């Protein structure tokens, strides 16, 4: 019963995640940017913009300029999350790819780093009056959700082990539409349930911010408006009140 339930949950969560992401990419990509609005100084070439975006994505350059505490907590959390996700690839590959094997020991530290970063962010959200002021219930709950996911993962690693061989068989099975039994350990079910929930809300919540960065005109535009004329289709259709003579 649990197996069936979680199978349905994960298959639908995957569809919602991919469908939702696709929809949002479509929404962002089809809305034109009618004016050149890069925050300057900005790169004057496409290559320069690629480097600017890489710095933003990898180093969180703007956040670093803004606030070192938020940067430390935010960066440590995201870097930790990345390594943890890579470590989890072993549940979806058979045989496990060589580099995923190499990542395994780092994944453990990353799990703690991720949790530390999240706790730092949550503490700031509560302690700093400016940030408390701008926080809606959902902003706190997102952090609780992520802390619960990271925490339940670490509990399974260190306190209440689960049968990870069976977990792997379950997910490999799902990927080829076969049903293998999922262990009914409570911590595992909480962990997986929260992950599925996060996948479902991902495209429709602020968790989508990474995609927003990629589409942000103030970051991804080339500073060359004098050299290259940039006009949106809807602007092309405007009729002037001032007629050139």
């Amino acid at each position: 019963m649990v197996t069936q339930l979680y199978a349905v949950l994960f298959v639908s969560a995957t569809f919602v995640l991919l469908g939702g992401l696709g929809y949002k990419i479509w929404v962002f990509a089809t809305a034109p940017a009618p004016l050149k609005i890069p925050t300057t100084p900005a790169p004057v070439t496409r290559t320069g913009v690629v480097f600017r975006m890489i710095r933003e994505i990898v180093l969180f350059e703007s956040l670093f300029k803004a606030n070192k505490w938020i940067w430390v907590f935010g960066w440590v959390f995201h870097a930790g999350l990345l390594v943890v996700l890579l470590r989890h690839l072993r549940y979806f590959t058979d045989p496990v790819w060589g580099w995923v094997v190499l990542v395994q020991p780092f994944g453990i530290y990353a799990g703690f780093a991720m949790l530390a970063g999240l706790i730092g962010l949550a503490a700031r959200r509560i302690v700093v009056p400016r940030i408390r002021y701008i926080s809606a219930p959902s902003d706190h709950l997102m952090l609780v959700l992520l802390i619960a996911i990271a925490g339940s993962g670490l509990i399974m690693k260190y306190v209440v082990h689960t049968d990870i061989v069976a977990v792997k068989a379950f997910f490999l099975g799902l990927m080829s539409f076969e049903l293998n039994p999922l262990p009914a350990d409570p911590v595992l079910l909480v962990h997986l349930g929260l992950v599925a929930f996060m996948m479902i809300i991902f495209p429709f919540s602020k968790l989508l911010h990474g995609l927003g960065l990629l589409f942000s005109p103030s970051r991804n535009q080339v500073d060359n408006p004098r050299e290259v004329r940039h006009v949106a289709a809807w602007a092309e259709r405007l009729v002037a009140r001032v007629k050139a003579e």
Partner: protein
Amino acid sequence: MAKVSDFIVDDSDTDPLAIPKLACGSMRDSKPFVAKDAHQAALGYPGELVDDWQDKAISKMGELLTKYRSLQVYMDSCVKCGACTDKCHYFLGTGDPKNMPVGRQDLMRKVYRRYFTFAGKYMPWLVGAEDLTEDVLDEWYTYYHQCSQCRRCSVYCPFGIDTAEVSMAAREIMDSVGKGQKYCNEIIGKVYKVGNNLGLPAKAIRSTLDGLEEELQEDTGLDIKMPLDQKGVDVLLVTPSADLFAEPHIDGLMGYAKVFHEAGVTWTLSSYASEAANFGMFIGSYENMREVSLRIRKAAEDLQVKRIVFGECGHAWRVAYSFLNTLAGPFDFLDQRYPIPQHICEFTYDMIENGELRFDKSKNDQYRLTYHDSCNVARGSRMGNKPGGQFEIPREILRASCNHFYDMAPDTIKEATLCCGGGGGILTDDLMDVRLKGAQPRMRAMQEVAEEHGVTHLAAICAICKAQFSKVLPAYGFKVNSILSVHQMVSNAIVLTGSIQEKELDEAKTPEAAE
């Protein structure tokens, strides 16, 4: 309404970027006069709040979300990380949390969530979504007119969210339902009717220019022309109308004339396009911004010029540099060897680089100078070929024309520059309280260099900055005339070929050479 004389400077802290305690609602009552019927009609907006304003506003918001990727992405992407919370000069000066960039954005974001997102429709309490009520509209009107669209927040946001884009969209929505701001909309109407923000007719401009020509003649002994509506010249100069009217702007205008004279470049102003500033941007109206820009194109075509040069004006330079080609291009009828458009600072800097200008820096020795990077030049445009030219070129011009130049603290200049407090449609007496408080971080940064280096004066390349500083400097212990135009410094120090100054300088030098 607060007057400058009523204003008590908060001197509890001297750090320009000191973060104030939250003072919720402290700026709730500072709002500008609402546009009247006639102001609205000239721009194609309804004269008063329409009956079904709520539906109209939401549908306008929906339209803007599909027309501006910036708005859609910015509405969706904020994670409330807090990076921007201490970056707005209006927040630093007032402590009102709705002046934190995210606080200001959220006034719109909560409405966006309510009407355009799943969570906001069904669980508004969870994500902080709210109906667009009359109170919310009122808050929009108040706080979206306490944003100078300076983009400082966009530098620090990890996703590049630019509150200016949100403010512009909000103002466009409010205009479309009949709740416009008098200051901006009345001014745009004057541009359509007369050709410039101040409503100066051609005759008045000509007589001002005549007076200035006389002054230049007396000053230099040279016949320096200041032409208006002259066909077939090299350059159309588009400059803020304040340059024809206000101090210290007018001294800058004389500086441009001297530089053109020395360059041997013929030029003209246009009465039809006698305004560089484009308030269409302030109200977020692509259409109005385009109409104002097309006037410049038409003037350039009618006067058969080869180049367009812009005078010292901040938001104007953003529209000119970043948008003019888009809005009124392509400019294939102009000489393609020069940037289109070109900034007067680029023009002067090129001459300095080529060794074509001679300066007597000692003429500016009475000034100990610092430079204010105008927000929209700094973060919404460029000068020269390299990123950051907008910071270096004006400084190089100042260093070439004076001996005592000192920059303010690094976290208050260049891309981190603080707005003067009057940009983006705020430069109106009905918002004096906002202007005085918003200037506080910049003024404190200036007080620091005044103490450290004995700085007495501040130079800027923006008509709004100049007008704003003339008003607020006295409240912070500086003299009213401590604000200067960059080309005023050029004008003071430039030694024109064949001028009285050249003779004086050469005579003074000869005895030394003989020794």
